Protein backbone atom coordinates (compact mmCIF):
# COMPACT_ATOMS: atom_id res chain seq x y z
CA UNK A 1 0.00 0.00 0.00
CA UNK A 2 2.77 2.42 0.97
CA UNK A 3 4.72 1.60 -2.18
CA UNK A 4 1.60 2.13 -4.28
CA UNK A 5 0.94 5.51 -2.66
CA UNK A 6 4.58 6.51 -3.05
CA UNK A 7 4.49 5.61 -6.74
CA UNK A 8 1.25 7.54 -7.17
CA UNK A 9 2.77 10.59 -5.46
CA UNK A 10 5.90 10.33 -7.59
CA UNK A 11 3.83 10.04 -10.78
CA UNK A 12 1.67 13.01 -9.86
CA UNK A 13 4.70 15.11 -8.92
CA UNK A 14 6.38 14.25 -12.22
CA UNK A 15 3.30 15.20 -14.24
CA UNK A 16 2.90 18.35 -12.15
CA UNK A 17 6.50 19.45 -12.68
CA UNK A 18 6.24 18.78 -16.40
CA UNK A 19 3.14 20.92 -16.66
CA UNK A 20 4.60 23.74 -14.53
CA UNK A 21 7.37 24.04 -17.09
CA UNK A 22 4.78 24.67 -19.83
CA UNK A 23 4.62 28.12 -21.41
CA UNK A 24 0.84 28.16 -21.17
CA UNK A 25 -0.41 29.71 -17.96
CA UNK A 26 -3.46 27.45 -17.58
CA UNK A 27 -1.31 24.33 -17.91
CA UNK A 28 1.04 25.80 -15.33
CA UNK A 29 -1.85 26.37 -12.91
CA UNK A 30 -3.04 22.80 -13.39
CA UNK A 31 0.53 21.59 -12.89
CA UNK A 32 0.82 23.46 -9.62
CA UNK A 33 -2.36 21.93 -8.30
CA UNK A 34 -1.18 18.46 -9.40
CA UNK A 35 2.08 19.03 -7.56
CA UNK A 36 0.07 20.12 -4.52
CA UNK A 37 -1.92 16.88 -4.71
CA UNK A 38 1.28 14.85 -4.87
CA UNK A 39 2.60 16.61 -1.77
CA UNK A 40 -0.68 15.99 0.03
CA UNK A 41 -0.35 12.28 -0.70
CA UNK A 42 3.18 12.43 0.73
CA UNK A 43 1.92 14.19 3.85
CA UNK A 44 -0.72 11.52 4.23
CA UNK A 45 1.97 8.88 4.04
CA UNK A 46 4.12 10.63 6.61
CA UNK A 47 1.66 9.33 9.20
CA UNK A 48 2.36 5.72 8.10
CA UNK A 49 -0.62 4.16 6.33
CA UNK A 50 -1.64 1.03 8.22
CA UNK A 51 -4.55 -0.50 10.05
CA UNK A 52 -4.61 0.85 13.58
CA UNK A 53 -6.99 1.89 16.31
CA UNK A 54 -8.75 5.20 15.89
CA UNK A 55 -6.92 7.96 17.76
CA UNK A 56 -9.06 7.80 20.89
CA UNK A 57 -7.48 7.70 24.32
CA UNK A 58 -8.68 5.02 26.69
CA UNK A 59 -10.04 6.29 29.97
CA UNK A 60 -7.19 6.98 32.36
CA UNK A 61 -4.50 6.62 29.68
CA UNK A 62 -2.32 9.55 28.67
CA UNK A 63 -0.68 8.26 25.49
CA UNK A 64 -2.16 7.22 22.18
CA UNK A 65 -0.19 3.99 22.03
CA UNK A 66 -0.91 1.75 19.03
CA UNK A 67 -3.38 4.00 17.26
CA UNK A 68 -3.59 6.03 14.12
CA UNK A 69 -1.78 9.36 13.94
CA UNK A 70 -4.35 12.16 13.58
CA UNK A 71 -1.84 14.92 12.75
CA UNK A 72 -1.19 14.15 9.03
CA UNK A 73 -4.91 14.33 8.30
CA UNK A 74 -5.09 17.74 9.90
CA UNK A 75 -2.05 18.80 7.88
CA UNK A 76 -3.49 17.48 4.63
CA UNK A 77 -6.80 19.19 5.28
CA UNK A 78 -5.06 22.53 5.91
CA UNK A 79 -2.84 22.06 2.87
CA UNK A 80 -5.86 21.28 0.66
CA UNK A 81 -7.66 24.42 1.79
CA UNK A 82 -4.60 26.63 1.26
CA UNK A 83 -3.85 25.03 -2.10
CA UNK A 84 -7.43 25.54 -3.20
CA UNK A 85 -7.39 29.20 -2.22
CA UNK A 86 -4.12 29.84 -4.02
CA UNK A 87 -5.25 27.99 -7.14
CA UNK A 88 -8.37 30.14 -7.25
CA UNK A 89 -6.28 33.31 -6.93
CA UNK A 90 -3.93 32.12 -9.63
CA UNK A 91 -6.86 31.29 -11.92
CA UNK A 92 -8.36 34.73 -11.30
CA UNK A 93 -5.02 36.35 -12.14
CA UNK A 94 -4.78 34.27 -15.31
CA UNK A 95 -8.28 35.34 -16.34
CA UNK A 96 -7.42 38.96 -15.68
CA UNK A 97 -4.18 38.64 -17.65
CA UNK A 98 -6.05 37.09 -20.57
CA UNK A 99 -8.57 39.92 -20.58
CA UNK A 100 -5.82 42.51 -20.38
CA UNK A 101 -3.35 41.17 -22.88
CA UNK A 102 -5.35 38.68 -24.93
CA UNK A 103 -2.92 35.82 -24.49
CA UNK A 104 -1.97 33.26 -21.89
CA UNK A 105 1.40 32.22 -23.25
CA UNK A 106 3.87 33.36 -20.63
CA UNK A 107 6.41 34.47 -23.23
CA UNK A 108 3.81 36.73 -24.84
CA UNK A 109 2.70 38.30 -21.56
CA UNK A 110 5.02 41.27 -21.69
CA UNK A 111 3.39 43.97 -19.55
CA UNK A 112 5.63 43.47 -16.49
CA UNK A 113 8.78 43.06 -18.54
CA UNK A 114 8.06 46.15 -20.62
CA UNK A 115 7.64 48.34 -17.52
CA UNK A 116 10.94 50.15 -17.09
CA UNK A 117 12.79 47.89 -19.53
CA UNK A 118 16.39 49.17 -19.72
CA UNK A 119 16.70 48.01 -23.33
CA UNK A 120 13.61 49.84 -24.53
CA UNK A 121 14.07 53.18 -26.30
CA UNK A 122 13.73 56.25 -24.14
CA UNK A 123 10.04 56.72 -23.46
CA UNK A 124 7.93 59.76 -22.88
CA UNK A 125 7.08 60.53 -19.29
CA UNK A 126 5.49 57.49 -17.72
CA UNK A 127 3.54 57.33 -14.54
Amino acid at each position, binding site marked *: MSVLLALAAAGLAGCGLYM*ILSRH*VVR*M*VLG*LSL*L*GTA*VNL*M*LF*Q*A*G*RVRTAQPPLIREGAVRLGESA*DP*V*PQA*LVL*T*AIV*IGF*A*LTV*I*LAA*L*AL*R*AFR*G*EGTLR*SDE*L*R*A*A*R*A*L*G*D*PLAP*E*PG*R*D*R
Partner: protein
Amino acid sequence: MIGEALRAGVAVWPVVVPLAAAALALLLRGRPALQRGVMEGALALTLAAVAALLGRVAGGGRVVMAFGGWGAPVGITFVADALSALLATTAGMVALAVAIFARADVRARRRRAGFDPLFLGMLAAVNGAFLTGDLFNLYVWFELMLVTALGLLTLDRRPAQVDGALRYAAMSMTGATCMLLGIGLLYGVAGTLDMGDLSAALAGRPPSVAVTAASYLLLAGLALKAGVFPLFFWLPASYHTAPIGVAAALAGLLTKAAFYACLRVLVTVLGVGTAAAAVPGVPPLLALLAAATMLVSVLAAIAQVDVRRLLAFHVMGQVAYLVMGLSLATAAGAAAAVVYTVHTMLVQTGLFLGAGAIARAGRGYDLRLLGGLIREHPVFAALFAALALSISGIPPLSGFWAKALVVDAAFRSAAPWRGWLAAAALVTGFLTLYSMSTLWTRAFQRPRRREGGAAHRIPTAMVVAVGLMAACTVGLGVAIEPVVRISRVAAAELMAGPAQGGGAP
Protein backbone atom coordinates in the same frame (compact mmCIF):
# COMPACT_ATOMS: atom_id res chain seq x y z
CA MET B 1 -7.12 41.37 35.61
CA ILE B 2 -6.88 43.03 32.23
CA GLY B 3 -3.19 43.57 32.86
CA GLU B 4 -2.81 39.88 33.59
CA ALA B 5 -4.56 38.89 30.37
CA LEU B 6 -2.37 41.33 28.45
CA ARG B 7 0.76 39.81 29.96
CA ALA B 8 -0.35 36.22 29.45
CA GLY B 9 -0.88 36.73 25.74
CA VAL B 10 2.18 38.87 25.15
CA ALA B 11 3.47 36.44 22.52
CA VAL B 12 0.30 36.50 20.42
CA TRP B 13 -0.80 40.13 20.49
CA PRO B 14 1.50 41.08 17.59
CA VAL B 15 -0.50 38.62 15.46
CA VAL B 16 -3.97 38.88 16.97
CA VAL B 17 -4.20 42.68 16.89
CA PRO B 18 -3.47 43.18 13.17
CA LEU B 19 -5.51 40.11 12.23
CA ALA B 20 -8.59 41.31 14.13
CA ALA B 21 -8.12 44.82 12.77
CA ALA B 22 -7.85 43.39 9.25
CA ALA B 23 -11.26 41.77 9.70
CA LEU B 24 -12.65 45.03 11.06
CA ALA B 25 -11.17 47.03 8.19
CA LEU B 26 -12.70 44.58 5.75
CA LEU B 27 -16.13 45.20 7.28
CA LEU B 28 -15.60 48.94 6.86
CA ARG B 29 -15.03 48.55 3.14
CA GLY B 30 -16.30 51.57 1.32
CA ARG B 31 -15.46 53.93 4.19
CA PRO B 32 -11.81 54.78 3.49
CA ALA B 33 -11.34 57.28 6.32
CA LEU B 34 -12.51 54.78 8.94
CA GLN B 35 -10.41 52.04 7.38
CA ARG B 36 -7.35 54.22 7.64
CA GLY B 37 -8.14 54.97 11.27
CA VAL B 38 -8.47 51.27 12.09
CA MET B 39 -5.24 50.47 10.28
CA GLU B 40 -3.22 53.17 11.98
CA GLY B 41 -4.67 52.41 15.41
CA ALA B 42 -3.95 48.70 15.02
CA LEU B 43 -0.44 49.50 13.88
CA ALA B 44 0.21 51.60 16.98
CA LEU B 45 -1.07 48.79 19.21
CA THR B 46 1.03 46.22 17.35
CA LEU B 47 4.14 48.37 17.77
CA ALA B 48 3.43 48.66 21.49
CA ALA B 49 2.94 44.89 21.69
CA VAL B 50 6.20 44.02 19.94
CA ALA B 51 8.10 46.62 21.96
CA ALA B 52 6.75 45.07 25.17
CA LEU B 53 7.76 41.65 23.89
CA LEU B 54 11.25 42.87 23.04
CA GLY B 55 11.56 44.33 26.52
CA ARG B 56 10.72 40.93 28.00
CA VAL B 57 13.15 38.79 25.99
CA ALA B 58 15.95 41.13 24.89
CA GLY B 59 18.32 39.86 27.56
CA GLY B 60 17.69 36.19 26.77
CA GLY B 61 15.03 33.70 27.70
CA ARG B 62 11.80 33.10 25.89
CA VAL B 63 8.07 33.57 26.23
CA VAL B 64 6.06 30.51 25.30
CA MET B 65 2.35 30.50 24.67
CA ALA B 66 0.56 27.20 24.11
CA PHE B 67 -2.85 27.60 22.53
CA GLY B 68 -5.64 26.07 24.55
CA GLY B 69 -3.11 24.96 27.15
CA TRP B 70 -1.95 22.10 24.92
CA GLY B 71 1.82 21.73 25.05
CA ALA B 72 4.25 21.20 22.23
CA PRO B 73 3.78 17.67 20.87
CA VAL B 74 -0.01 18.00 20.67
CA GLY B 75 -0.80 21.68 20.33
CA ILE B 76 0.76 24.60 18.51
CA THR B 77 2.97 26.97 20.45
CA PHE B 78 4.08 30.53 19.90
CA VAL B 79 7.64 31.08 21.07
CA ALA B 80 9.08 34.57 21.35
CA ASP B 81 12.81 34.87 21.88
CA ALA B 82 15.28 37.67 21.26
CA LEU B 83 15.46 36.98 17.51
CA SER B 84 11.71 36.93 16.90
CA ALA B 85 11.07 39.99 19.08
CA LEU B 86 13.87 42.00 17.48
CA LEU B 87 12.67 41.28 13.95
CA ALA B 88 9.01 41.80 14.85
CA THR B 89 9.91 45.21 16.26
CA THR B 90 11.79 46.10 13.10
CA ALA B 91 8.82 44.91 11.04
CA GLY B 92 6.63 47.21 13.13
CA MET B 93 8.88 50.16 12.31
CA VAL B 94 8.79 49.28 8.61
CA ALA B 95 5.00 49.04 8.70
CA LEU B 96 4.83 52.40 10.48
CA ALA B 97 6.85 54.09 7.74
CA VAL B 98 4.71 52.49 5.04
CA ALA B 99 1.52 53.58 6.81
CA ILE B 100 2.77 57.17 7.04
CA PHE B 101 3.73 57.09 3.37
CA ALA B 102 0.31 55.62 2.53
CA ARG B 103 -1.37 58.76 3.85
CA ALA B 104 -0.08 60.50 0.73
CA ASP B 105 0.20 57.59 -1.67
CA VAL B 106 -2.84 55.41 -1.01
CA ARG B 107 -5.94 57.31 -1.99
CA ALA B 108 -9.56 56.39 -1.38
CA ARG B 109 -9.71 54.20 -4.48
CA ARG B 110 -6.85 52.00 -3.33
CA ARG B 111 -8.30 51.86 0.18
CA ARG B 112 -11.61 50.72 -1.29
CA ALA B 113 -9.70 48.09 -3.23
CA GLY B 114 -8.62 46.70 0.16
CA PHE B 115 -5.24 48.21 1.00
CA ASP B 116 -5.82 48.37 4.75
CA PRO B 117 -7.08 44.81 5.45
CA LEU B 118 -4.44 43.32 3.12
CA PHE B 119 -1.63 45.34 4.67
CA LEU B 120 -2.70 44.41 8.19
CA GLY B 121 -3.05 40.78 7.13
CA MET B 122 0.47 40.84 5.74
CA LEU B 123 1.82 42.33 8.96
CA ALA B 124 -0.01 39.65 10.97
CA ALA B 125 1.43 36.94 8.73
CA VAL B 126 4.97 38.30 9.05
CA ASN B 127 4.68 38.53 12.83
CA GLY B 128 3.14 35.07 12.90
CA ALA B 129 6.09 33.67 10.98
CA PHE B 130 8.47 35.37 13.43
CA LEU B 131 6.68 34.09 16.51
CA THR B 132 5.44 30.60 15.74
CA GLY B 133 7.22 27.61 17.23
CA ASP B 134 5.66 25.12 14.86
CA LEU B 135 7.04 24.25 11.44
CA PHE B 136 3.71 23.64 9.71
CA ASN B 137 2.31 26.81 11.22
CA LEU B 138 5.28 28.63 9.70
CA TYR B 139 4.25 27.32 6.28
CA VAL B 140 0.70 28.56 6.84
CA TRP B 141 1.94 32.07 7.69
CA PHE B 142 4.04 32.08 4.54
CA GLU B 143 0.98 31.24 2.48
CA LEU B 144 -0.94 34.04 4.15
CA MET B 145 1.94 36.40 3.32
CA LEU B 146 1.76 35.29 -0.31
CA VAL B 147 -2.00 35.76 -0.56
CA THR B 148 -1.97 39.24 0.98
CA ALA B 149 1.09 40.24 -1.06
CA LEU B 150 -0.71 39.20 -4.26
CA GLY B 151 -3.70 41.31 -3.27
CA LEU B 152 -1.51 44.31 -2.53
CA LEU B 153 0.50 43.84 -5.71
CA THR B 154 -2.60 44.00 -7.91
CA LEU B 155 -4.23 46.89 -6.06
CA ASP B 156 -4.53 49.00 -9.22
CA ARG B 157 -5.33 46.03 -11.49
CA ARG B 158 -2.99 47.21 -14.23
CA PRO B 159 -1.91 44.63 -16.83
CA ALA B 160 1.70 44.89 -15.66
CA GLN B 161 0.66 44.22 -12.07
CA VAL B 162 -1.45 41.22 -13.02
CA ASP B 163 1.43 39.89 -15.12
CA GLY B 164 3.94 40.45 -12.32
CA ALA B 165 1.63 38.90 -9.72
CA LEU B 166 1.14 35.85 -11.94
CA ARG B 167 4.91 35.26 -12.12
CA TYR B 168 5.32 35.92 -8.41
CA ALA B 169 2.45 33.59 -7.49
CA ALA B 170 3.64 30.74 -9.71
CA MET B 171 7.20 30.78 -8.40
CA SER B 172 6.16 31.33 -4.81
CA MET B 173 3.64 28.49 -4.89
CA THR B 174 6.29 26.15 -6.27
CA GLY B 175 8.59 27.20 -3.43
CA ALA B 176 5.87 26.74 -0.84
CA THR B 177 5.14 23.27 -2.20
CA CYS B 178 8.82 22.36 -1.79
CA MET B 179 8.67 23.64 1.79
CA LEU B 180 5.55 21.62 2.52
CA LEU B 181 7.10 18.47 1.10
CA GLY B 182 10.17 19.01 3.27
CA ILE B 183 8.03 19.56 6.34
CA GLY B 184 6.04 16.40 5.61
CA LEU B 185 9.22 14.36 5.27
CA LEU B 186 10.59 15.72 8.55
CA TYR B 187 7.33 14.86 10.26
CA GLY B 188 7.55 11.34 8.85
CA VAL B 189 11.05 10.99 10.32
CA ALA B 190 10.63 12.67 13.67
CA GLY B 191 6.89 12.52 14.37
CA THR B 192 6.66 16.09 15.61
CA LEU B 193 6.37 19.55 14.08
CA ASP B 194 7.44 21.66 17.03
CA MET B 195 10.79 23.22 16.15
CA GLY B 196 12.34 22.62 19.56
CA ASP B 197 11.22 18.98 19.65
CA LEU B 198 12.27 18.44 16.03
CA SER B 199 15.70 19.78 16.80
CA ALA B 200 16.01 17.43 19.77
CA ALA B 201 14.74 14.48 17.71
CA LEU B 202 17.10 15.13 14.78
CA ALA B 203 20.25 15.97 16.76
CA GLY B 204 22.85 13.28 16.78
CA ARG B 205 21.02 11.16 14.20
CA PRO B 206 23.28 9.81 11.45
CA PRO B 207 22.55 11.61 8.15
CA SER B 208 19.71 9.85 6.33
CA VAL B 209 18.25 10.20 2.86
CA ALA B 210 14.92 11.42 4.19
CA VAL B 211 16.37 14.14 6.41
CA THR B 212 18.81 15.28 3.72
CA ALA B 213 16.08 15.42 1.08
CA ALA B 214 13.77 17.27 3.46
CA SER B 215 16.51 19.77 4.36
CA TYR B 216 17.36 20.60 0.78
CA LEU B 217 13.68 20.89 -0.16
CA LEU B 218 13.16 23.31 2.72
CA LEU B 219 16.30 25.18 1.72
CA ALA B 220 15.11 25.42 -1.91
CA GLY B 221 11.66 26.66 -0.89
CA LEU B 222 12.99 29.24 1.56
CA ALA B 223 15.81 30.38 -0.73
CA LEU B 224 13.23 30.96 -3.45
CA LYS B 225 11.12 33.06 -1.12
CA ALA B 226 14.16 34.96 0.16
CA GLY B 227 15.25 35.80 -3.39
CA VAL B 228 18.50 33.85 -3.57
CA PHE B 229 20.28 32.88 -6.79
CA PRO B 230 19.25 30.97 -8.93
CA LEU B 231 15.60 31.08 -7.89
CA PHE B 232 15.21 34.87 -7.62
CA PHE B 233 13.78 35.76 -11.01
CA TRP B 234 10.26 36.25 -9.71
CA LEU B 235 11.41 39.22 -7.62
CA PRO B 236 12.65 41.64 -10.30
CA ALA B 237 9.76 40.43 -12.49
CA SER B 238 7.11 41.57 -10.04
CA TYR B 239 8.28 44.09 -7.41
CA HIS B 240 8.63 46.97 -9.83
CA THR B 241 5.01 46.66 -10.92
CA ALA B 242 3.56 47.09 -7.41
CA PRO B 243 2.24 50.41 -6.10
CA ILE B 244 5.41 51.93 -4.66
CA GLY B 245 4.30 51.93 -1.01
CA VAL B 246 3.42 48.26 -1.36
CA ALA B 247 6.76 47.53 -3.02
CA ALA B 248 8.45 49.13 0.00
CA ALA B 249 6.53 46.89 2.40
CA LEU B 250 7.27 43.78 0.32
CA ALA B 251 10.96 44.66 0.05
CA GLY B 252 11.24 45.34 3.77
CA LEU B 253 9.23 42.42 5.10
CA LEU B 254 8.81 39.37 2.89
CA THR B 255 12.29 38.31 1.79
CA LYS B 256 13.53 38.98 5.32
CA ALA B 257 10.80 36.83 6.86
CA ALA B 258 11.96 34.07 4.52
CA PHE B 259 15.54 34.56 5.68
CA TYR B 260 14.38 34.43 9.30
CA ALA B 261 12.75 31.08 8.50
CA CYS B 262 16.06 29.95 6.97
CA LEU B 263 17.82 30.78 10.23
CA ARG B 264 15.24 28.93 12.30
CA VAL B 265 14.99 25.89 10.10
CA LEU B 266 18.64 25.47 9.19
CA VAL B 267 20.23 26.45 12.49
CA THR B 268 17.72 25.55 15.17
CA VAL B 269 15.97 22.57 13.60
CA LEU B 270 18.71 21.05 11.46
CA GLY B 271 21.65 22.19 13.57
CA VAL B 272 23.72 23.62 10.71
CA GLY B 273 26.84 25.09 12.28
CA THR B 274 26.53 23.16 15.51
CA ALA B 275 28.25 19.91 16.38
CA ALA B 276 24.98 18.03 15.97
CA ALA B 277 24.28 18.94 12.35
CA ALA B 278 21.62 16.64 10.95
CA VAL B 279 22.49 17.31 7.33
CA PRO B 280 25.84 17.62 5.54
CA GLY B 281 27.02 20.09 2.95
CA VAL B 282 24.80 23.10 3.63
CA PRO B 283 27.41 25.80 4.49
CA PRO B 284 29.49 25.52 1.28
CA LEU B 285 26.31 25.55 -0.81
CA LEU B 286 25.06 28.63 1.01
CA ALA B 287 28.40 30.38 0.54
CA LEU B 288 28.31 29.71 -3.18
CA LEU B 289 24.71 30.91 -3.45
CA ALA B 290 25.47 34.04 -1.44
CA ALA B 291 28.44 35.02 -3.61
CA ALA B 292 26.52 34.33 -6.83
CA THR B 293 23.45 36.26 -5.64
CA MET B 294 25.55 39.28 -4.65
CA LEU B 295 27.46 39.58 -7.88
CA VAL B 296 24.65 38.75 -10.28
CA SER B 297 22.13 41.09 -8.69
CA VAL B 298 24.44 44.05 -8.26
CA LEU B 299 25.62 43.77 -11.87
CA ALA B 300 22.01 43.55 -13.01
CA ALA B 301 21.16 46.58 -10.88
CA ILE B 302 23.85 48.66 -12.59
CA ALA B 303 22.20 47.99 -15.96
CA GLN B 304 18.81 49.36 -14.87
CA VAL B 305 17.31 52.71 -15.74
CA ASP B 306 14.06 52.38 -13.80
CA VAL B 307 14.46 53.30 -10.12
CA ARG B 308 12.09 50.56 -8.96
CA ARG B 309 13.84 47.86 -10.97
CA LEU B 310 17.22 49.03 -9.78
CA LEU B 311 16.12 48.82 -6.15
CA ALA B 312 14.46 45.43 -6.69
CA PHE B 313 17.83 44.01 -7.75
CA HIS B 314 19.45 45.54 -4.67
CA VAL B 315 16.87 43.76 -2.47
CA MET B 316 18.40 40.47 -3.57
CA GLY B 317 21.94 41.80 -3.41
CA GLN B 318 21.38 42.63 0.25
CA VAL B 319 19.67 39.34 1.08
CA ALA B 320 22.88 37.71 -0.14
CA TYR B 321 24.80 39.28 2.77
CA LEU B 322 22.36 37.67 5.18
CA VAL B 323 22.90 34.31 3.54
CA MET B 324 26.65 34.91 3.69
CA GLY B 325 26.44 35.41 7.47
CA LEU B 326 24.43 32.19 7.77
CA SER B 327 26.82 30.25 5.53
CA LEU B 328 29.72 30.85 7.92
CA ALA B 329 28.08 28.40 10.36
CA THR B 330 29.36 30.27 13.40
CA ALA B 331 27.57 32.16 16.15
CA ALA B 332 29.32 35.37 15.10
CA GLY B 333 28.11 34.85 11.52
CA ALA B 334 24.53 34.31 12.63
CA ALA B 335 24.67 37.38 14.89
CA ALA B 336 26.05 39.48 12.03
CA ALA B 337 23.26 38.20 9.77
CA VAL B 338 20.66 39.25 12.34
CA VAL B 339 22.15 42.76 12.62
CA TYR B 340 22.21 42.95 8.84
CA THR B 341 18.57 41.87 8.66
CA VAL B 342 17.49 44.70 10.95
CA HIS B 343 19.52 47.20 8.94
CA THR B 344 18.36 46.02 5.54
CA MET B 345 14.66 45.87 6.47
CA LEU B 346 14.74 49.55 7.41
CA VAL B 347 16.95 50.75 4.56
CA GLN B 348 15.23 48.86 1.74
CA THR B 349 11.87 50.19 2.83
CA GLY B 350 13.28 53.71 3.05
CA LEU B 351 14.78 53.48 -0.43
CA PHE B 352 11.56 52.25 -2.04
CA LEU B 353 9.56 54.94 -0.26
CA GLY B 354 12.17 57.43 -1.45
CA ALA B 355 11.70 56.15 -4.99
CA GLY B 356 7.99 56.89 -4.62
CA ALA B 357 8.77 60.45 -3.56
CA ILE B 358 11.25 60.85 -6.43
CA ALA B 359 8.57 59.73 -8.86
CA ARG B 360 6.11 62.15 -7.32
CA ALA B 361 8.53 65.05 -7.70
CA GLY B 362 9.94 64.13 -11.11
CA ARG B 363 6.80 62.53 -12.58
CA GLY B 364 8.26 59.14 -13.36
CA TYR B 365 10.77 56.47 -12.45
CA ASP B 366 12.96 56.65 -15.54
CA LEU B 367 16.47 57.73 -14.56
CA ARG B 368 17.11 58.94 -18.11
CA LEU B 369 14.45 61.60 -17.69
CA LEU B 370 14.91 62.55 -14.04
CA GLY B 371 17.25 65.25 -12.78
CA GLY B 372 17.80 68.31 -10.68
CA LEU B 373 15.49 67.44 -7.82
CA ILE B 374 17.98 68.79 -5.27
CA ARG B 375 17.10 72.34 -6.28
CA GLU B 376 13.54 72.13 -4.94
CA HIS B 377 13.98 69.33 -2.41
CA PRO B 378 17.34 69.66 -0.63
CA VAL B 379 16.12 68.02 2.61
CA PHE B 380 14.68 65.03 0.83
CA ALA B 381 17.86 64.72 -1.23
CA ALA B 382 19.89 64.53 1.98
CA LEU B 383 17.56 61.91 3.49
CA PHE B 384 17.76 59.79 0.37
CA ALA B 385 21.53 60.18 0.29
CA ALA B 386 21.74 58.84 3.85
CA LEU B 387 19.80 55.74 2.83
CA ALA B 388 21.79 55.30 -0.38
CA LEU B 389 25.10 55.55 1.49
CA SER B 390 23.84 53.21 4.19
CA ILE B 391 22.97 50.43 1.73
CA SER B 392 26.47 50.84 0.23
CA GLY B 393 28.11 50.46 3.63
CA ILE B 394 29.55 53.92 4.27
CA PRO B 395 30.36 54.84 7.90
CA PRO B 396 28.90 55.96 10.23
CA LEU B 397 25.56 54.56 9.00
CA SER B 398 24.04 51.24 10.02
CA GLY B 399 25.05 49.62 6.73
CA PHE B 400 28.72 50.06 7.55
CA TRP B 401 28.44 48.22 10.85
CA ALA B 402 26.30 45.49 9.31
CA LYS B 403 28.78 44.90 6.48
CA ALA B 404 31.76 45.18 8.81
CA LEU B 405 30.28 42.58 11.16
CA VAL B 406 29.53 40.13 8.34
CA VAL B 407 32.99 40.46 6.79
CA ASP B 408 34.65 40.32 10.19
CA ALA B 409 32.70 37.15 11.01
CA ALA B 410 33.84 35.70 7.67
CA PHE B 411 37.52 36.23 8.51
CA ARG B 412 37.03 34.80 11.99
CA SER B 413 35.34 31.65 10.70
CA ALA B 414 37.19 28.49 9.77
CA ALA B 415 35.63 28.22 6.32
CA PRO B 416 38.34 27.67 3.69
CA TRP B 417 36.55 29.92 1.20
CA ARG B 418 36.25 32.85 3.62
CA GLY B 419 38.67 35.04 1.68
CA TRP B 420 36.74 34.63 -1.56
CA LEU B 421 33.46 35.25 0.19
CA ALA B 422 34.75 38.42 1.83
CA ALA B 423 36.18 39.56 -1.49
CA ALA B 424 32.80 39.03 -3.17
CA ALA B 425 31.14 40.99 -0.36
CA LEU B 426 33.55 43.91 -0.67
CA VAL B 427 33.39 44.03 -4.48
CA THR B 428 29.60 43.99 -4.23
CA GLY B 429 29.80 46.80 -1.70
CA PHE B 430 31.80 48.95 -4.12
CA LEU B 431 29.48 48.15 -7.01
CA THR B 432 26.47 48.97 -4.80
CA LEU B 433 28.07 52.30 -3.99
CA TYR B 434 28.59 52.92 -7.70
CA SER B 435 25.00 51.99 -8.51
CA MET B 436 23.50 54.07 -5.71
CA SER B 437 25.64 57.11 -6.41
CA THR B 438 24.64 56.97 -10.09
CA LEU B 439 21.03 56.82 -9.00
CA TRP B 440 21.43 59.77 -6.63
CA THR B 441 23.40 61.88 -9.06
CA ARG B 442 21.01 61.27 -11.91
CA ALA B 443 17.87 61.91 -9.91
CA PHE B 444 19.01 64.83 -7.79
CA GLN B 445 22.17 66.50 -8.90
CA ARG B 446 22.63 66.68 -12.64
CA PRO B 447 20.81 69.45 -14.50
CA ARG B 448 17.32 68.65 -15.58
CA ARG B 449 17.06 67.34 -19.13
CA ARG B 450 13.84 69.06 -19.96
CA GLU B 451 13.81 72.62 -18.78
CA GLY B 452 10.57 74.39 -18.14
CA GLY B 453 8.88 72.02 -15.73
CA ALA B 454 9.97 72.62 -12.13
CA ALA B 455 9.94 69.60 -9.86
CA HIS B 456 6.57 68.91 -8.30
CA ARG B 457 5.82 69.13 -4.63
CA ILE B 458 6.46 66.08 -2.45
CA PRO B 459 3.73 65.53 0.16
CA THR B 460 4.98 65.98 3.73
CA ALA B 461 3.88 62.45 4.68
CA MET B 462 6.26 60.99 2.11
CA VAL B 463 9.21 63.03 3.39
CA VAL B 464 8.36 62.07 6.98
CA ALA B 465 8.21 58.37 6.07
CA VAL B 466 11.56 58.47 4.28
CA GLY B 467 12.95 60.59 7.09
CA LEU B 468 11.87 58.02 9.68
CA MET B 469 13.80 55.28 7.92
CA ALA B 470 16.80 57.58 7.38
CA ALA B 471 16.72 58.51 11.07
CA CYS B 472 16.67 54.80 11.94
CA THR B 473 19.75 54.08 9.84
CA VAL B 474 21.63 57.12 11.19
CA GLY B 475 20.53 56.31 14.74
CA LEU B 476 21.61 52.68 14.41
CA GLY B 477 24.87 53.84 12.90
CA VAL B 478 25.60 55.98 15.93
CA ALA B 479 24.35 53.46 18.49
CA ILE B 480 24.48 49.98 16.98
CA GLU B 481 25.53 48.45 20.29
CA PRO B 482 22.06 47.45 21.65
CA VAL B 483 21.13 45.72 18.38
CA VAL B 484 24.46 43.89 18.32
CA ARG B 485 23.94 42.79 21.91
CA ILE B 486 20.43 41.46 21.22
CA SER B 487 21.67 39.77 18.04
CA ARG B 488 24.43 38.00 19.96
CA VAL B 489 21.86 36.73 22.45
CA ALA B 490 19.65 35.65 19.54
CA ALA B 491 22.50 33.84 17.78
CA ALA B 492 23.49 32.07 20.99
CA GLU B 493 19.89 30.93 21.45
CA LEU B 494 19.69 29.78 17.84
CA MET B 495 22.88 27.78 18.17
CA ALA B 496 22.04 26.33 21.57
CA GLY B 497 20.02 23.62 19.87
CA PRO B 498 18.15 20.88 21.65
CA ALA B 499 19.55 21.66 25.09
CA GLN B 500 17.43 24.79 25.12
CA GLY B 501 14.80 23.38 22.77
CA GLY B 502 11.42 22.04 23.64
CA GLY B 503 8.55 24.40 23.01
CA ALA B 504 6.56 23.11 25.95
CA PRO B 505 5.89 25.65 28.68
